[in-house]
Structures are given as C-alpha cells and as structure tokens.
C-alpha cells in the first residue's frame, strides 16, 4: 500500500468554534524555492523556414551516435562492438555479423500523405480520422545518410516509430534485408552531478501539475475550477490544508488552457471579410477564453508562482518547440510578476529537482503511429530513446533546425511528465547508472477534474493525484466516457483499456462530505 503524501484531518472540518481565535488568525507564509529556467534552448531566435528537414535527421544521428555506441558496448560486450561497429550502413557486408547504428523509418500505408491526396482525383476526401494509423503491413527500415536496410527478425516493429535512433546487432542478408538478432536504444541520459548535490532541506515542498483546463468551453465545470483556485490559494479546507498549501511552491500549467471548441466554431462560421475584433457586437470565442484564463491566472498568481506552457489548443505557434504564450494576453496575471510563460517542451529545475516535460503532443503522436496503448509506456519509451519528440519532423511538425536537435535529452530529469492525457498514470524508471526518474501522465482537467501533486525530493520524488470532483455520487463524467469510448473503438487490437488505471489510494475528493466509501 502506497503511503499517502497528504490527507486532510477529518476532525478539523465542521468542528465547534473554539474560544481561542489564534488558530484562525494565524497566517502561513508560502515557502520559497530555488528555481532555474532552462527553457532557453527551445527559444527560436531567427526563423528560417527555407531549410529542409534532412539536417535535423543528420544532426540527430551524429549527436546520438556516441551514446548508441556506448549502449551497444554495454549490451553486447566489447568484443563484437570494437571490431564491428559500422560507421556507415554502407560498410555492412553481406553475411558479416556486425553492429549498425541508424534511424528507424516505418513505412505505413495509412499515414496521411499529401502526395496521395493530390495525386488522386480532387473530389476524393481524405481518409476518415482514426485513433491509430498502424496496419499489419507496416515495415521497418533502418537508414542513415548512405543507405537503408529493411529490417526483419527480432525487432518489435509495431511498437517503434519513425525517427527513433537504434543500434542493431545482426547480419546483412543477400537481397538487402538486415536480419536483426538484438537491438538497443541510447537509454536514459546520465544525471548531472551539480543537481544531485543540492541539499535536501527539512521543509517539504510540493509542485502542482495541471493541464487541459479547457477555458471557454460550453461544458466547462466552473465549480471544479473554482475549487482548484480556492484550494491552491488556501481558502478551502481546514487549518492543516492551509498549512499544507503554504508548502506548495509552484503550479505548472501544462498546456491546453483554452478549449479546442473555439477553433471548431471558427470553422463553422462563414469567412468574414473583416477580422473579428473589428466587427461590432461580436467577440471571438478565443478572446473570451483567454480573458477567462487571465482571471484564473490572476487569482493563482496572487499567491503562488505559476509556469504556463502552451499546448496544442493554445494561441501559440503550431510547430514544436512552441514558443511561450505572449504575456500581453494576460495583463492582470502579468501585473503580479509571478507568471512565467515558458516553452513547450519544458525544462526547469525547481528546488533541486529537474522537471522536463511536454504538453502531450509527443505521446499523442506516438500513440497514433504505434500499436502501444499504454501512454505511460510510450512516455517511458521516449526516455529510453533519449529523445522527447522522435516522430518529429515526420508526423509531428517541428521547426527545421539546421545545426542542432534540442529535443535530445542531455541530462536525466528527476520528474518527466506529459500533459493532457486521458487519465493519471505514474511510474518510476531506472537507468543503467542507477538514476531514477519519476514519470507522470498528467490528466486533462476538463475530463477528469484532477491535478497532480509532486513532492520534491530529487530522485525520490513522489506523486499523488488530487481530484476536484463536484459530483456527490460517483457518477462518471459523461464527456470522459465519450472520449474513452471513442478511443476504444479506434484501437485495432483489443489489448484492454488504454493503460493501467493506477489511481493511488490517497486520492481525495474534496466535497465528499456525505460519502461513506472513502478509500482508506
């Protein structure tokens, strides 16, 4: 049974008014925390869109080559590798057992292709949207700048996606196919020593992760959002709740703060000749949603620092890395000075604990193009592959870098998360050097009304889900049910429900005053 990291004491609720009022006059000061923003490497300085994407693949392969050589040496012993690591795929001879390093490419029939759309007749519509675009005829190919080999043998093609760097042990056969005996990935990066030796203070500190707030939607649950804000600002619960909330040092909003509904409404509207802000008596949905977001953030930032990440539905650029949302959109929140607008992907050090994460586009994209259904497993795979967005730029749009690939993980995070997932999942993964990473799938707030609390303890951080449910019975959220049902129908192989629903026993529902079946 997992230890709960926090639970309110029931005696404090509905207690008799005490004679001494000090307990109610006491103020708690929020703990301070060291903070280092490392998102600079994702900022785009000059925008040059003329270059091709081939440069990213080349840079990715060359940068990861030493890591893969080390991983191959570790796995298969020095003998095979020192003799037979091929610098170029071209050097692999037929019949020779060797180790090759290259990028994977998966030929997929169902992958949306612009050329297929253009070449077929104009009245044909594009293929209907599917949850998974895998098929049994997908073929895996390894390539580098000299040559490519189709792969066969001991390699799990359905689980892998284009853009993953791999080291393969096997033999090139006559006919051009490479027969794989064994494979390995770069593995977890090593941890930076300077971060490890941060002294652990006596004070407990927590960070709250939330994503998918979905402001501006018609079915947005205002009460849950209000509860969330009241909880974080210490206006909810008893004295111990307030004491606990004062140890909450940061709130990270991991993307999708605006609902996707607004863009759908825009498509349905006929195209107007004027911009919406120029027409009278008409306000754009996104503007209203952003104003709501500003109010929400202003309340939060009045007492806690907030990190805001852009997501797929937010008014930020479409390509990854998404640049920070412009603070001019949040004038009230910006005035408090505690709002930091950061990039997606995200990389900071909070109180000695390295946080890295994404707003969910990476996991969603890999989910579509591989047969894996467990999103936590996909997230952990990106760690093993040592690359946050392996499918970019193939199916996930990214900036055409010429001389770098900033999504390669150079240091090992303590906490690795991805936002906007259908349910909360967490796990722990250990690398070959003993570095341990806490992986978290942050659930989408508009579906599950829950946020994730992380206790900062460096490598031993702990996590718990907090639900701000507003239903008095355990009635399921109809929107969540619809989304999960659609997902199940879309999955080709019925390997059970997407992911282990690992709800930790410490889940708290704040308004369950009348509920008897507490999961103690």
């Amino acid at each position, binding site marked *: 049974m997992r230890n709960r990291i926090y639970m309110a004491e029931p005696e404090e609720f509905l207690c008799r008014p005490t004679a001494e009022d000090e307990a109610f006059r006491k103020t708690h000061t929020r703990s301070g925390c060291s903070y280092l923003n490392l998102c600079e490497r994702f900022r785009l300085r000059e925008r040059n869109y003329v270059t*091709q*994407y*081939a440069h990213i693949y*080349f840079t990715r392969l060359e940068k990861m080559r030493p890591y893969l050589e080390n991983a191959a040496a570790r796995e298969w012993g020095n003998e095979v590798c020192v003799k037979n690591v091929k610098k170029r795929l071209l050097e692999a001879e037929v019949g020779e057992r060797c180790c090759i390093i290259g*990028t994977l*490419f998966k030929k997929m029939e169902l992958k949306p292709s612009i050329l297929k759309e253009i070449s077929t007749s104009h009245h044909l519509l594009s293929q209907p949207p599917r949850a998974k675009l895998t098929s049994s005829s997908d073929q895996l190919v390894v390539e580098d700048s*000299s040559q490519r080999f189709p792969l066969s043998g001991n390699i799990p093609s359905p689980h892998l996606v284009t853009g993953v760097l791999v080291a393969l042990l096997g033999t090139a056969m006559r006919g051009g196919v490479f027969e794989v005996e064994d494979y390995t990935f770069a593995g977890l990066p090593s941890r930076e020593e300077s971060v490890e030796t941060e002294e652990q203070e006596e004070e407990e500190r927590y960070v709250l992760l939330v994503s998918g707030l979905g402001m501006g939607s018609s079915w947005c649950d205002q009460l849950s959002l209000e509860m969330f804000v009241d909880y974080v600002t210490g206006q909810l619960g008893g004295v111990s709740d307030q004491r606990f909330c004062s140890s909450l040092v940061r709130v990270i909003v991991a993307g999708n703060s605006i609902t996707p509904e607004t863009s759908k409404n825009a498509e349905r509207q006929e195209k107007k000749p004027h911009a919406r802000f120029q027409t009278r008596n008409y306000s754009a949905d996104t503007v209203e949603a952003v104003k709501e977001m500003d109010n929400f953030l202003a309340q939060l930032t009045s007492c806690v620092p907030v990190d805001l990440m852009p997501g797929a539905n937010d008014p930020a650029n479409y390509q990854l890395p998404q640049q920070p949302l412009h603070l001019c959109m949040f004038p009230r929140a910006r005035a408090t000075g505690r709002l930091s607008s950061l990039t997606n992907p995200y990389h900071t050090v909070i109180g000695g604990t390295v946080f890295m994460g994404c707003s969910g586009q990476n996991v969603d994209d890999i989910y579509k193009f591989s047969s894996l259904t467990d999103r936590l497993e996909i997230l952990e795979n990106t760690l093993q592959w040592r690359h946050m967005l392996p499918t970019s730029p*193939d199916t996930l*749009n990214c900036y055409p870098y010429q*001389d770098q690939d900033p999504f390669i993980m150079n240091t090992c995070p303590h906490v690795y998360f991805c936002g906007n997932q259908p349910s909360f999942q967490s796990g722990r993964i250990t690398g070959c050097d003993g570095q341990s990473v806490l992986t978290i799938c942050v659930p989408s707030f508009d579906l599950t009304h829950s946020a994730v609390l992380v206790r900062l303890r460096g490598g031993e951080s702990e996590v718990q889900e907090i639900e701000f449910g507003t239903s008095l019975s355990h009635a399921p959220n109809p929107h969540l049910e619809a989304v999960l049902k659609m997902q199940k129908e879309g999955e080709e192989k019925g390997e059970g429900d997407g992911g282990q629903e690992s709800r930790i026993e410490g889940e708290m529902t704040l308004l369950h005053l009348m509920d008897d079946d507490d999961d103690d």
Partner: protein
Amino acid sequence: MTSLDEHGGRQIRPGKIFSEDHNKPAVAVTPRSEERVLEEFDLDYAFGPSNGISRLMRWERAQRLCLNPPEEVRRIILQHGSDSKYNERYVESAASSYNSLSCISLYCSLWNRHISGIK
C-alpha cells in the same frame, strides 16, 4: 555518379572521404581549385546534407559534431568573406542523398503549404 573534369582529370565521386586529401601535397592555389575544394566539401556526405545551409554553417556543424572537417575549407570561405558566393549553399544538388528522409522533407513542406491554404 562521376563527373569528368576538363582541366585536371580529377573525378568527383560521391561519398569520397575528404580526409584522404590531407596526405596529398598542396597544389597551387588558383581560384578554380579553391572552388573545387569547396565543391568536394559539399559533396562529402560525411558532413551531412549540403542543401539549404551555408558552407560555413555546415563546417561549424561538422566541427561541433566532431567530424573533423578540413581546416582548408574554412580558411577559403573566410578569406573571401562570409557574404561571398564561396559561402553560398551548394545549388547543384546532383549528388546529395535523396533518400526517404529528404522525401519526408518534401512531403512536410507540401503539407505545410496545403494546410496553410497556399495553392
């Protein structure tokens, strides 16, 4: 793929590893042979794709990735200034590798145009 040279009879083969040339004695530096040196640097796939990137940036990228690009190339480019045509991208892409990764790049750019409504 080879191309015959009228003046010196040297053939430019794709994938020729540049480092072999370090052992040859230096030839008299004429503007023509400097261009030859730069072209060979462009065609050497060990340093990555040469399309869409300036030669100096490509050299610096190769340097950062520890691929040992020849110093001579950098010297020639900087001698003529980074704004000169010596630093320009290699336009004739006859030898650049048109593998599936550059097809992906073609698809991506077409897709971008499609979704942004450019016909």
